[in-house]
């Protein structure tokens, strides 16, 4: 869970997002560039730097899944200044992620996911404080004040052994190919036959294809332009930057081309 998947978009203040449904969440509709997500503001969650009041589940590398409440959550911020461990300020940067706080001594460690370096920070009221002096280049993490006991050392290597065995087992057996690009089309067809929502999706796809097929006999040639540049379907060419949103243009100019007098900048041909 994160504040808008860690990019501080803050579509609504304190609105959290997750790929998993949580209490009070509603669907944030996806766009051309983003998928739909569960989003919502949790109960009583109005203050900055509060953890969301939800129960989360975590899947671990050893295969087990555990559930935990907000009391076990902690915020993870992406490190801004590597030298000091200072995180990005709130409202700027990749944002804050909420994960289970696992108690390793004094709670502070760093780790890397993808290209981000994270720092788990103490929460002191409304403030977030981070310690300094931890080597951020250690992977997966280096705790600043942790002693790795012999029992933990053995446990860690047992885990590594189990994972290695599991990996070899999986890779030694052939993986069944369910169909084109990994989709089990037989199951998809069953869903369409038995589920109303699946039939509705197919129906919408049919409509969309028919509409596009009717609207554009061939793709336009020439420079594509920016997304707000207007395309004249009658001349199959030309683009105009109008300074108005495409939606407003569509509503007013559906089926005809915008005249040159109303354009602020034009290019391509035929418009």
């Amino acid at each position: 869970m994160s504040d808008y998947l860690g990019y501080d978009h803050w579509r609504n203040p304190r609105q959290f997002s997750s790929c998993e449904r949580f209490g009070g969440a509603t669907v944030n509709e996806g766009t051309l560039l983003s998928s739909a997500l569960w989003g919502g503001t949790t109960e009583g969650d109005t203050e900055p730097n509060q953890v969301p009041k939800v129960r989360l589940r975590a899947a671990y590398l050893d295969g087990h899944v555990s559930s935990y409440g907000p009391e076990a959550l902690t915020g993870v911020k992406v490190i801004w200044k590597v030298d000091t461990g200072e995180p990005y300020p709130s409202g700027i940067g990749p944002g804050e992620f909420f994960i289970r706080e696992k108690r390793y001594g004094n709670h502070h460690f760093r780790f890397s996911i993808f290209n981000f370096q994270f720092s788990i920070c103490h929460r002191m009221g409304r403030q977030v404080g981070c310690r300094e002096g931890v080597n951020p280049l250690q992977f997966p993490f280096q705790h600043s004040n942790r002693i790795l006991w012999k029992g933990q050392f053995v446990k860690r290597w047992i885990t590594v052994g189990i994972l290695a065995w599991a990996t070899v087992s999986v890779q030694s057996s052939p993986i069944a190919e369910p169909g084109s690009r990994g989709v089990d089309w037989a199951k998809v067809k069953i869903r369409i036959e038995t589920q109303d929502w699946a039939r509705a999706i197919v129906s919408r796809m049919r409509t969309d294809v028919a509409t596009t097929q009717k609207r554009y006999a061939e793709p336009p040639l020439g420079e594509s332009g920016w997304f707000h540049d207007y395309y004249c379907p009658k001349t199959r060419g030309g683009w105009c930057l109008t300074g108005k949103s495409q939606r407003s243009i569509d509503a007013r100019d559906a089926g005809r081309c915008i005249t040159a007098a109303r354009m602020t900048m034009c290019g391509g041909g035929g418009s």
Partner: protein
Amino acid sequence: MAAAVHDEIIAAIHSAAILHQITGEAAYLDYARGKLLWYAGHYEQYPPHGKHAGKGRIGAQSLDEATQTVELTEAYWDLCPALSEDDGQGLPISC
């Protein structure tokens, strides 16, 4: 607005390829195959452009280009068993 037109057409190719997989209807194969090959044949004719967020040929920016390419690739994968060697335009068809 040609970028948005491409976006709509490529989405239709993607959907048509899926509909062909599901229904087996030849009309969807014809549409998706025709438009996919059209883009394959004309792609180099689109000049790279863009100044806001990377460059694209058929897309408005690099991110659009990437996501559209994913849709075209998935459509190719879905259609591949129905394509012939002639459809490869000199490139091998490999499913």
